[in-house]
């Protein structure tokens, strides 16, 4: 920590500040309520971890929702069997998803490129289907796994004389409803970001970048790349497990839909939208997608009708019909469109846009019009 480079420290402090002040600066956007803020934190963690595998190492997994889902189930089981306290639940979830990632990663990493992606997708779909079928005793199938008053909670019963009334997750006896829940999750996002930052700036992170850029050269340079890629896979799996567990903390009902391929695809979109390989990009991608999901999926026909009311009769109902395809359930259509536009015009995601703008401002005063003779610097 002492050896943290100055720029990294500034970025970290800036990030921390932005996160902690979210309840304030998100007010004008109508997004400053705990439920949504918590999801910003949770999916931020998911994307930061995913980026370690995809952005740094260059392995595109299409199955990371499996680890997210496993994290959720593990946390709920910890609530049921051990204690309603969130700390054992989070530890248990991280360990279980880490072990799960170790197994799936070990097999999937025998291939690279598209074959790796397909393998991860296949494993995730298998997990999803098993959660609905043979694993019903563990997952409670379609109903989803939830807390009940009759859960054993051995640890709680051993320590406290009286069993707590409502089965709601707590932190050392404190309730985590409302903003407390947000700050709890925010703490984890900040830690998650810090760890990702350390990894990125470490020799280990440099090796991951080397693997992404030229794995063959890594071999002839004396590196056994397998354990590096596996470590990146497991770390990102544990991030996903932590995110899944936090979602179980805020909403202790784990269902298999958290493991579906759409959920795996969503974290890919978040990372690419924000900027794969950058530190803050994936977080911004996660926030934007969750924000617009929240807005667009809440819009229904009656809201649209009011919005287009000023138009002449006939035209307005036509507009409502068209627009309704893009909102509510159809929000994924909007997401897809935005994604296509970003990938075509800003392949490096939003962070590339930020860099381009910063670049314009930086050199505008110096040499107007002239092309920069210096070749572009690395990273």
């Amino acid at each position, binding site marked *: 920590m002492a050896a943290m480079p100055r720029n990294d420290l500034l970025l970290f402090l800036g990030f921390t500040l932005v996160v902690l002040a979210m309840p304030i600066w998100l007010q004008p956007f109508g997004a400053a309520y705990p439920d949504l803020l918590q999801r910003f934190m949770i999916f931020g963690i998911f994307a930061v971890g995913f980026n370690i595998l995809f952005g740094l190492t260059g392995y595109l997994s299409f199955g990371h929702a499996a680890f997210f889902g496993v994290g959720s189930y593990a946390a709920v089981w910890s609530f049921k069997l051990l204690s309603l306290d969130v700390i054992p639940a989070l530890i248990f979830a991280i360990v279980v998803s880490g072990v799960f990632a170790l197994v799936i990663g070990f097999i999937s990493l025998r291939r690279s490129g598209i074959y790796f992606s397909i393998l991860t997708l296949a494993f995730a779909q298998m997990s999803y289907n098993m959660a609905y079928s043979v694993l019903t005793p563990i997952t409670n199938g379609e109903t989803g796994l939830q807390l009940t008053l009759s859960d054993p909670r051995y640890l709680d019963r051993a320590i406290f004389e009286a069993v707590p009334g409502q089965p709601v997750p707590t932190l050392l006896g404190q309730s985590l409803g409302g903003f407390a829940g947000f700050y709890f999750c925010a703490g984890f996002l900040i830690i998650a970001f810090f760890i990702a930052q350390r990894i990125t700036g470490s020799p280990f992170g440099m090796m991951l970048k080397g693997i992404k850029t030229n794995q063959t050269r890594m071999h002839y340079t004396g590196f*056994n790349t397998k354990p590096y890629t596996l470590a990146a896979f497991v770390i990102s799996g544990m991030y996903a497990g932590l995110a899944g567990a936090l979602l179980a903390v805020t909403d202790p009902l784990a269902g298999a839909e958290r493991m579906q391929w759409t959920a795996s695809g969503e974290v890919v979109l978040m990372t690419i939208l924000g900027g794969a390989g950058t530190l803050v990009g994936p977080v911004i991608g996660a926030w934007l997608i969750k924000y617009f999901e929240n807005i667009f999926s809440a819009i229904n026909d009656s809201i649209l009708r009011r919005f287009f009311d000023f138009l002449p009769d006939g035209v307005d109902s036509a507009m409502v019909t068209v627009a309704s395809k893009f909102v509510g359930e159809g929000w994924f259509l909007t997401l897809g469109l935005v994604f296509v536009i970003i990938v075509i015009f800003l392949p490096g995601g939003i962070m590339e846009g930020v860099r381009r703008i910063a670049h314009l401002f930086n050199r505008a005063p110096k040499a107007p019009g002239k092309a920069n003779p210096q070749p572009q610097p690395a990273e």
Partner: protein
Amino acid sequence: MSQPNVVLHVADVHKRFGGLHALADIDLQVEEGQTHAIIGPNGAGKSTLLNVIIGKLAPSSGQVVFDGASLTGRKPYQINQLGIARVFQTPEIFAELSVLHNVMIPALAKRDGAFKLNMFRSLESEIGIRQEAEDMLEDVGMLGRRDMAAGSLSRGDKRRMELAMCLIQHPRLLLLDEPTAGMSRHDTNTTIELLKKIKSRGMTKVIIEHDMHVVFSLADKISVLAQGRIIADGTPDQVRGNPKVQEAYLGGAH
């Protein structure tokens, strides 16, 4: 059979690609501290020979012995860790990373071995490795480009940087596949000077080269490869005087 000072022994190696006999009955001994040149026309099998040595390709029969140990069945990274580094015919570099990082990565491989989970150390605190990399870049005359993305370097500079990536590992054996191809006369001469400097430090080298000027100014021994076979070997003077070589190769080049 190997003498104590033979570092590399390629023993009766054959390599077939389907019907193509790319290497036939290759027997080659490289002595400690020497620069051994391999010359021959395009498609003779020179790069294939290096591929067999570094474990990229397995020989169809025969074996490669390095420092008394057989390399058969070893992975490329293990062979590198034993002390063999290679400059490729088309540069194998980390195009998206900076020149400095390109050179620091092999230095870390040398220090930390094939795998180390050092993820809470800062790269910035690797002052020793960084210094080593900067010295190396200074040596090859590229210190001024250290913050550039390696992919945006000129062809000659990419090769020079790749050479630095190999040299920083202080390999016991350095393999060079046409290190001056595509370089200007001036760059070629700088590279020759550099290679002479390494030679004076006693590094063993196998060099594939088309430029006879480079070959005769560097090599202690020359093997001539044609259609997968060694048709002649010996000192530069012996090879120069060999009529078979004149006919097969030098005749056209001189």
